């Protein structure tokens, strides 16, 4: 073996060791330090959690006391954001829109393992449907018309991608979705007499009241989160995960994987449609750069990865974290350095914490309270 290979190998081994140390130490040591606070808190909260588990837990998954506390705090924080975060309403609103995208991506790609790079085309379909309707049909068109039509168009596009490509396994599927984005992008240019090319189409904002706008985005986001969490924890979610783990076993169980993969696309396309419409109105317009380009798909993927794929709420948290870093905390770094830092973070999560940061947090909270499973 050459020296170079040997060096390479020892680097690889070092990375492996760091990884295992991180994995082993994170929970027990953390538990030692925080345990003094965590365990009494868990005892205090457990009766509440138990009541939740007996009622809603059946549908949404059981929790420990501390996990429930995290959920309640996050929910409370989101609902009361205009009271404490007036200065951050814009990033919070965008975070909520991207959370819808990340969850939409997750129910299809994260769950089934069929990685889609095409979700920016789906959100683009919704944005452009709204934009084209407003531009060419009637600028005064009611949201009650544009929103359902945009979601419908997204679902149609989703199925148009899914039906031919889901016969293909893994990488081939990803390729087709990737190509769909390139095609969509080229079409926005080629049809620029309709779409105004790179300039895009102007769309009215919902409202100039930022607080109201925030709620107009957060409420649908919470509805998507609740619905997808419910679906993810149901038999449907189990089958989708089983498709990822072993598609042949799903067939052997008498369940049609193709049907479920298509269904996952529908489940995904509807939130993508909702998110696309929201983004068009929040951004006051739709253009290829903010909707279609493949970078946007990769951002959705990054959010899901950071939060923890195939958990719905993980990608939700990942979206807020990502947008927070992108639009608030790392802005001082300047355009390129900020992105570089973000992508490095995603890489680190992929290598060292592939289950995602929020899933790690969730497990740590569970372990802290003495996980009952």
């Amino acid at each position, binding site marked *: 073996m050459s020296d170079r290979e040997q060096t390479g190998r020892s680097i690889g081994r070092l990375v492996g060791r760091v990884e295992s140390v991180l994995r082993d130490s994170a929970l027990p040591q953390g538990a030692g330090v925080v345990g003094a606070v965590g365990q009494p808190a868990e005892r205090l909260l457990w009766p509440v959690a138990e009541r939740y588990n007996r009622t809603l837990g059946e549908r949404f998954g059981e929790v420990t006391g501390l996990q429930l506390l995290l959920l309640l705090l996050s929910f409370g924080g989101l609902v009361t954001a205009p009271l404490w975060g007036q200065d951050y309403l814009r990033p919070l609103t965008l975070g909520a829109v991207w959370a819808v995208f990340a969850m939409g991506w997750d129910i299809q790609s994260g769950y089934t393992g069929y990685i889609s790079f095409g979700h920016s085309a789906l959100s683009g379909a919704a944005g452009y449907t709204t934009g084209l309707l407003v531009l060419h049909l009637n600028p005064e068109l009611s949201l009650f018309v544009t929103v359902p039509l945009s979601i419908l168009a997204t679902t149609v596009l989703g199925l148009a991608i899914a039906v031919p490509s889901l016969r293909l396994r893994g990488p081939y599927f990803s390729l087709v979705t990737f190509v769909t984005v390139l095609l969509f992008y080229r079409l926005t240019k080629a049809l620029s007499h309709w779409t105004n090319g790179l300039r895009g189409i102007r769309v009215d904002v919902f409202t100039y009241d930022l607080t109201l706008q925030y709620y107009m985005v957060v409420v649908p986001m919470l509805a998507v989160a609740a619905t997808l969490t*419910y*679906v993810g924890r*149901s*038999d*449907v979610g*189990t*089958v989708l*995960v*089983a498709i990822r*783990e*072993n598609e*042949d*076993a*799903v*067939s*052997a*169980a*008498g*369940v*049609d*994987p193709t*049907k*479920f993969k298509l*269904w996952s696309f529908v489940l995904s396309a509807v939130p993508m449609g909702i998110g696309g419409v929201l983004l068009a109105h929040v951004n006051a317009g739709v253009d290829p750069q903010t909707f279609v380009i493949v970078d946007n798909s990769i951002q959705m993927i990054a959010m899901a990865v950071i939060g923890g794929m195939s958990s719905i709420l993980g990608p939700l948290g990942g979206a807020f974290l990502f947008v927070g870093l992108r639009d608030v905390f790392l802005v001082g770094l300047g355009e390129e350095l900020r992105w570089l830092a973000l992508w490095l973070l995603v890489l680190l999560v992929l290598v060292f914490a592939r289950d995602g940061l929020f899933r790690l947090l969730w497990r740590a909270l569970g372990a802290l309270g003495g996980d009952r499973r």
Partner: protein
Amino acid sequence: MTLLSVDGLAKQFGGLVAVDDLSFGVESGEILGLIGPNGSGKTTVFNCIMSIYAVTSGTVRFGGTDITDDKTHQIVNRGLSRVSQESNPIGSMTVRENIELFTFPNSVRSFDGGASDEAIASYAARVDIEDALDDDPGSLPHADVRRLEIAKALATEPDLLLLDEPFAGLNQTEVRQLSEQFESFREQGITMVVVDHNMRGLMDLVDRVVVLHNGQKLAAGDPADIVGDERVQDAYLAGEVSAVQ
């Protein structure tokens, strides 16, 4: 009554003939042994029956219905289930969840449609793994992983079970236990086809034997007659020799 009938089945991979004009039937309530040396096409026959492979020619009928062009999940829902040679439980799910998956209806609108915990426990009990229901499949010993595979197949409520090398890697006691369990499945009304390359272990269990050699039917009949059949012995000897070379 003939439950499964295979007629003129052929399967080619490129130019390679894996199964050639094979016909046999399985009577309701019997245990049929499908034996043959390594590479004789036994697993390919199962894969063709289950539509894992598209057949090159021939038909497969189950309960009188042509299932040749059905998809795997449709065949399973008709009451035919296969336990494959490789164990492939889903590692991120418990034993219970692995079995439950096999009880799900094929419906995207079913959010809570799997079997009850009692039903799942009863499938597990039929192969003696009811104590391992909450374990991860990865932590089970080899024999229990094999039993889990059988429990999963049972959970689809089959009329006919295709068992691919069910005894591989098991010790004497485990083989005896499993044979007894197969007998009890029969009493519960399940017909079985058992594939094995080793005929001796199978002789006490099966009612009838079909011998495959190079993808063709070499002999069929009573186990005792087959053991004495010279052509069968030659085939096995040739198989062993070519396997060594």
